[in-house]
């Protein structure tokens, strides 16, 4: 009897120790990704942000990769909530409704959804103004082209992609009014074969700088093989095209993720929609390739500073669309609502939106 009581007491003590020492601060954070983290693209960038969380005291993280949008993502989110995760990040647009459903069932768990627009008591959403980075990459591309034709391998005709193409074009036009941007849609997010072929078709019409929206380095490969320049996306794509790569529009999620999780730890978190700009560090451009001249670097660095100070707004009028219709009046700045619903190309883009 005595022995039994002793064991029970000991067991109770052992169980109590971690509960006491970590009590209020321990936070379990789960991430749901659309693609494998090794893709050097979109999910890879989110995963780098997750790794930064691991450095925080009391924070443990884990992730599930390659989760399709729809019912599968709901199951994964539900599973995480049941297992006692405190914060769940879902990083693809199509996770929005599944996450909202699970959020309603688990009011104590914080849900954060990337690129969507729905919020709840315990669900917020976030995204970055990557178009600011696109603008800067456009300035670099517009400075480097000699044919005045830039090629853009585009993913899907949705506002986010269109906004990126427009910002890139405005950036290029700011230093090179003669420049035109040719767009080829692949309707893929990750298909190296098709995207590389699309890139080659742009080379055939004379493009000498290629930009892209997809996750795959296919277009970078095409630029490297053809001996022209390229602009990457998501992460620094330099390693795929060392001779071609000028710079990339990149995501850096660490500042936002650490801030959001800190707020949950401190109990100050509130559901909100945030669209993070360059001043937060979430969107940026990667280091320039060796071929980018000093003058171009200085100009772009200067513009970057202006964006961060708020002095330079990318979509400042007058902005005309392909048909020459004025979309943003002189002196006006496009509203976030206009940006989020953008379904027209600026003048200077060659391509269709259907």
């Amino acid at each position, binding site marked *: 009897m005595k022995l039994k009581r002793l064991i029970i007491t000991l067991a109770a003590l052992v169980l109590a120790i971690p509960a006491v020492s970590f009590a209020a601060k321990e936070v379990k954070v789960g991430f749901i990704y659309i*693609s494998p983290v090794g*893709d*050097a693209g979109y999910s890879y960038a989110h995963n780098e942000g997750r790794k930064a969380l691991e450095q925080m005291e009391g924070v443990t993280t884990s992730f599930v990769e390659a989760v399709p949008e729809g019912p599968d993502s709901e199951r994964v989110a539900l599973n995480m909530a049941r297992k006692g995760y405190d914060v769940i990040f879902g990083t693809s647009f199509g996770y929005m409704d599944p996450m909202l459903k699970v959020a309603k069932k688990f009011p104590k768990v914080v849900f954060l959804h990337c690129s969507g627009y729905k919020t709840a008591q315990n669900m917020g959403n976030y995204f970055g103004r990557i178009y600011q980075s696109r603008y800067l990459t456009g300035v670099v591309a517009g400075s480097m082209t000699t044919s005045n034709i830039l090629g853009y391998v585009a993913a899907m005709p949705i506002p986010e992609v269109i906004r990126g193409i427009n910002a890139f074009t405005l950036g290029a036009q700011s230093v090179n009014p003669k420049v035109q941007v040719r767009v*080829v849609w692949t309707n893929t997010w990750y298909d*190296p074969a098709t995207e590389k072929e699309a890139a080659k*078709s742009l080379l*055939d019409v004379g493009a000498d700088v290629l930009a892209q929206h997809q996750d*795959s380095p296919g277009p970078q490969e095409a630029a490297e093989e053809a001996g022209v320049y390229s602009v990457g996306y998501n992460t620094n794509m330099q390693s*795929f095209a060392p001779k071609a790569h000028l710079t990339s529009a990149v995501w850096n999620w660490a500042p936002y993720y650490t801030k959001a999780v800190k707020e949950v730890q401190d109990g100050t978190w509130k559901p909100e929609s945030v669209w993070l700009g360059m001043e937060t560090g979430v969107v940026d451009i990667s280091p320039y390739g060796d071929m980018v001249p000093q003058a171009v670097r200085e100009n772009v660095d200067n513009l970057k500073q202006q964006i961060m100070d708020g002095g330079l707004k990318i979509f400042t009028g007058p902005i005309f669309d392909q048909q020459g219709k004025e979309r943003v009046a002189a002196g006006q700045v496009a509203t976030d609502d206009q940006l989020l619903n953008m379904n027209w190309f600026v003048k200077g883009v060659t391509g269709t939106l*259907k």
Partner: protein
Amino acid sequence: MNFDILIPLLAATVLSGTPVLYATLGEIITEKSGVLNLGVEGVMMVGAFSAFFVAAATGSPWLAFVAAGVVGMLAVSLHGVVCLWFQGNQVVSGLALTLLGSGLANYLGTPYVGTKAPGFSAVALPGLSRIPALGEIFFNHDPLVYLSYLLPPILWFFFHRTGIGLGLRAVGENPAAARAAGLNVQRLRWIGILVGGFFMGLGGACLSLAYTHLWTSSLSGGRGWIAVALVIFAFWRPGRAVFGAWLFGGVMALQLRLQASGAQVSSSLLLMLPYALTVIVLVFSSAWRKSDAAPAALGVNVEPGE
């Protein structure tokens, strides 16, 4: 469309048609022996992955190319076991092979997504590549494209001039008569399945070794199914398969170039073109030739001891 655009377009046609060509030839060999294998897509996927894996591990693209063929043979041997040993339904077994192959390649390949491996690059053939226009279109590609030029005549010779090839066709047309003539029906069908699988694996290897040098999930993107359709378009003839594969590749390359040149056509419609065209071509070629081009015993199982 001017000449400057036309020649790169035709060169891209040949390049994007090549993976499909290998796979189509593989399916022709299989079907000639009387076995329908709808697992092409899956076999291409395992072929593409094993090629990528071996290239990354050994640094030798040629070794990787052969390995893809061997793995393709291993994959289709499942189909052989089901259809030849157990008399299973060929359609169901083929579909299962597609699911299994694609799933397996995606599963094993997950850690490698987005990574690079050594592969083939374009090598201009000395002399031939200097021919105006034709040189640029046909003789400025990677070695796997050149190899694909040799295959149709070799296969024609195989089917019409060699004992095994003639036997293989016989068991596809009339297994009972072939058996009465003393042919080993089971063995010949095994040859058809395995050699066919070898070529399908090579088709996959073209995607991960030459077309790109990257690995990604679902790399084949439906090209295996296109190959199945092109077999009918080709009337089971290796020579015609070349035109089918290039037609598909040509439309694929054309739609991207139409977009790049600023054509005011819906990109969704253009992206649908290669697949829509395959369906149309299939309908017309079936209407012209009816069924007499197909091996008569295609899809019919044969009892081992019959």
